[in-house]
């Protein structure tokens, strides 16, 4: 006695095979009577009580659909065989293989009645074409209906670009240079050993300004104006400006250091808890 699961599996495989066979009959113009409809129906009936899942019911429906297509083909096949056009394809194929070129040509010419068609200009159509040409308005008049939008070009001012947020108030490189000078000044004033605590440099009056300064600092490091010194055990982070920007920084393997600048950190810095 087969288990229920095994029986379902076998049923699915059988339906799948039936679908494939029906498909190949349809697609490859095979004899549709190769399919034993009664046998397939008995298989479908046999396994129908096993189907509970929607996928299995869909498979069952597809099998019936494919079988219906084959039955339709069988009906067409019978109709075709009963017409006067029917000839045994094997007999005809045999003939086609054995027949000589000249002979098939002779046969074809007896059954071929080519269409008579002329592609010649007539005096009437020429006269019509001339009349059309004479009545045709020049392009500049016809295209008046679709006026093209006119665009004026002129130089944009720096103020306009700043207004459209294409440029910042200051050029970025200029801003970065100033920021670097500020870092060097702050290191001289408040720093030790040519460096300053990261938060002491980026920290500002408001959180927004602090974030902006952290953003600018990241560019100072990336573009070789400064470097970061990280002491993970002490959880200390310093920024150290270079005297001159390092230009070969792109040639070295760069590492990304994520530094969180949260509002909580900023508040702690304000309260002096970060030192």
């Amino acid at each position, binding site marked *: 006695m087969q288990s229920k699961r095994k029986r379902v599996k076998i049923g699915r495989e059988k339906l799948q095979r039936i679908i494939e066979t029906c498909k190949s009959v349809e697609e490859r113009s095979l004899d549709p009577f190769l399919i034993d409809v009664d046998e397939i129906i008995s298989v479908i009936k046999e396994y129908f009580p096993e189907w509970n899942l929607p996928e299995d019911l869909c498979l069952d429906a597809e099998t019936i659909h494919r079988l219906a297509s084959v039955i339709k083909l069988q009906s067409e096949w019978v109709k075709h065989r009963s017409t006067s056009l029917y000839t045994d394809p094997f007999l005809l*194929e045999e003939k086609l293989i054995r027949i000589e070129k000249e002979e*098939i040509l002779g046969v074809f010419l007896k059954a071929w009645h080519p269409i008579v068609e002329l592609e010649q200009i007539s005096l009437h159509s020429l006269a019509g074409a001339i009349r059309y040409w004479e009545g045709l308005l020049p392009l500049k008049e016809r295209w008046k209906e679709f006026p093209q939008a006119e665009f004026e070009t002129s130089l944009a001012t720096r103020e306009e670009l700043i207004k459209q947020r294409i440029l910042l108030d200051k050029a970025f490189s200029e801003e970065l240079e100033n920021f670097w000078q500020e870092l060097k000044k702050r290191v001289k004033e408040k720093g030790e050993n040519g460096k300053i605590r990261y938060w002491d440099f980026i920290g500002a009056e408001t959180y927004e300004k602090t974030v902006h300064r952290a953003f600018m600092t990241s560019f100072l490091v990336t573009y070789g104006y400064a470097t970061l010194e990280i002491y993970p055990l002490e959880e200390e982070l310093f920024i150290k400006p270079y005297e001159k920007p390092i230009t070969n920084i792109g040639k070295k393997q760069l590492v990304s250091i994520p530094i969180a600048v949260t509002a909580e950190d900023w508040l702690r810095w304000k309260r002096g808890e970060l030192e």
Partner: protein
Amino acid sequence: MEKRRTRVGSRKAYYASKIKRATHLLFYRRHRKPGVKGWELRKALGSDYPKVLKILDNYLKALDLQVKTIFEGEKPVEKPTSEQLDKARFYVTLRGELTPKENKMIGWRIDDLAGLAITIAYIISKKGKAPRKEVEELLRDKLPGWKVSLNIDRYIRYGYLTQDENEQLYLDWRTRAEVDQKALIDLLLSAET
């Protein structure tokens, strides 16, 4: 008596002018495909255009030409309705046969025409649909390999065949208009090989 003669004369003149118009429409190509749709003829010739075409067909008999009607769908219609006629396409075709020498005059090489005949016959034998690969294999037996695919493309371009996305070949509008499929198969089967 005189009155009757005048009436007959004016009817003759009426149909003579209609026949001229129909000849222009049918012989000169107006669209990408040759032939004229029934509704176009009705518009140009009036609702009695089937009668005009019948008279024209009689005229053309002497010239070995005929007016051929191809209905929508694959099968010919015995007693067409006016709606079926409106949707049908009308052509002027050769009524009789061409001799083997004449085929050169209409721009076909013997190889290409024989290949077309084989292809059409094979597709008919396969109930109007055959895989392109099978047709190519059949043609390769008698035609150089490089020519086979080019020829099939040419038959498709001319409208003798059409091809679907699965590379299945079918007979197209020009075969239906120009080839007497039953005669072709009968002649082929009775040919002595």
